[in-house]
């Protein structure tokens, strides 16, 4: 567990952010930041505003008020592909792959940002384009191996199991060379052993120097993997801190875990 260390650079900061859809206040006055190299989780019950916050941080939505800054650059007004060019890459909950392409080609598409050669080079198949293509294929093969899907490399991504598709989604997000990765409920629908593998994967990704922001439902998973946790309820932050702090925070237990909190706490303790 990383202790809070203010010396680390702030990767992403959410400053006084509010979001309204018509009359509905989805988020009100959100303030928190993600530091370089940490795994931060955003949790909260259904309807707490997690997905809205996630979409704000990835530039899919523009906040009604406040700013989201990535390494000091405001994301407001940037197009999604420009945000990706900054090194801020997200994964998706449902549609995480290119279904009609093979796993390998999925990763190759993810490598798009790396392999930019001029149009002329590409169309004429000049040596520069060939070298770049070869390098990309090697890199893709390496990533497919790293994620553990070598055996499925030539299968269509759409034919893979749910858990495997999630892995492909992560692999192609990694192909885009993120400095920060935002994962939207990556383990929802996974069984216990798949979840366990995925937790290990998230740690490995962090060890490669990628900062991670996780939006997740699965409490034991979140408690096990996070350095820090931000808890949302009704569009505002009700608690923030290390898993130990969150686990024992009365406001969280009451508001988020609600009734039967004791059982859940026990389950969490057992898992951790």
């Amino acid at each position, binding site marked *: 567990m990383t202790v809070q260390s203010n010396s680390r650079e702030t990767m992403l900061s959410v400053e006084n952010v509010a979001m309204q859809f018509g009359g509905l206040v989805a988020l009100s006055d959100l303030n928190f930041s993600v530091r370089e190299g940490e795994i931060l989780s955003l949790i909260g019950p259904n309807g707490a505003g997690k997905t809205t916050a996630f979409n704000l941080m990835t530039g899919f939505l523009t906040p009604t008020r406040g700013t989201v800054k990535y390494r000091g650059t405001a994301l407001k007004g940037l197009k999604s592909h420009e945000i990706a060019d900054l090194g801020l890459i997200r994964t998706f909950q449902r549609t995480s792959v290119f279904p009609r392409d093979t796993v390998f080609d999925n990763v190759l598409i993810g490598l798009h940002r790396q392999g930019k050669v001029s*149009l002329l080079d590409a169309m004429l198949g000049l040596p520069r384009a060939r070298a770049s293509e070869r390098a990309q294929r090697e890199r893709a093969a390496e990533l497919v191996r790293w994620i553990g899907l070598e055996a499925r490399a030539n299968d269509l991504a759409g034919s893979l199991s749910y858990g495997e598709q999630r892995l492909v989604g992560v692999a192609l997000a990694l192909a885009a060379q993120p400095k920060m990765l935002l994962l939207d409920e990556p383990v929802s629908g996974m069984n216990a052993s798949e979840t366990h593998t995925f937790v290990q994967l998230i740690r490995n990704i962090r060890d490669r120097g990628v900062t991670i922001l996780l939006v997740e439902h699965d409490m034991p998973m979140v408690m096990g993997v996070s350095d820090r946790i931000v808890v949302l309820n009704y569009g505002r932050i009700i608690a923030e801190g290390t898993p130990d702090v969150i686990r024992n925070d009365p406001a969280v237990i009451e508001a988020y875990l609600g009734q039967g909190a004791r059982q859940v706490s026990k389950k969490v303790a057992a898992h951790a």
Partner: protein
Amino acid sequence: MNRIVTLLCLLIFASVPLWLQDPYLLNALITTGIFIIAAMSLNLLLGFTGQLSLGHVAFFGIGAYVSALTALGFDVPIVGDFHVVHVPWPPVIGFVLAILISGFCGYLVGRLSFSVRGAYFVIVTISFAEVVRLVALNWVELTQGPLALTNIPSITIGLPGLGYLVLKTKLQNYYLVLAVAALSYFLIARLVHSHYGRAMRGLMENETLAVAVGIDVTRTLTLAAIISAGIAGAAGSLYAHYIRIIDPDVFAFITTVTMVIMVVSGGKGSLAGPVVGGVIFGLLPVFLRPIMPPEAQWITYGGVLIAILFVLPRGIVPTLAPLLGLARKRGATSAKAIDVAEEGA
């Protein structure tokens, strides 16, 4: 393996005039070849980006008119006594200008419609083709309107000092069309197997995800539209210099429909699809003509189309290629496979 088959097909096409002397059939092959080039360009948009251009004939027609007018010259009054005069240039320059100007029109149409896409792109392209047709019909000083541009010179190739060759005969034109078709095929193949092509496929399959990994939608689609329109313009130019007379009917909607039929029956999103579909639907009328009256020809034409799409809904090539062991090995991971994949491209 794929490369061998491609080369073999090219050799077969190249050898056709050796055993086929009939000028009528050769003529049919040349026009079919020209429409195959146009269909290949349409396939780049429809098959690899999923955008249906129902006005694709506009780029073809613009190419034909630009090329013809460059070679013929014109004298057009603009305001009062102010005339724009163009003295005839060699047809080869017309060919190049046809590609550039058609490509530029592709850029305009793409820029206009790709921020909205889908049905809007279809509507914009149809409207664009209709507007261009009306201009060709009514700007009589420039285009002769329905009187047609006649006596368009044949394409001349050659280098200063080495002599020139006027491509007048069917045989010469056949090889010219074959060369342009092969070049277009090669360029499109390179493009779709490069990261540009992967960006297009990614956008077609899952746009939100593609954008999230850093693919620029407008740029990618506009690029596809420019190249597609440019190739269609090249086909139009070949058409103008081969037929040597063009009128506003080159913008007929039915021509776009024919291209779409060629692409869809052959298999959209497959490189060889438009070639196979084009050969079938380009030559079918030729073989039907001696044996049945025109109405029955069209009915048969439609019947064949329905039969193909009923039996092979994905098109001929994507369904049959795997059965023949010709499917491109995609996503091979070993070093050897990387070589194979590169060769296949």
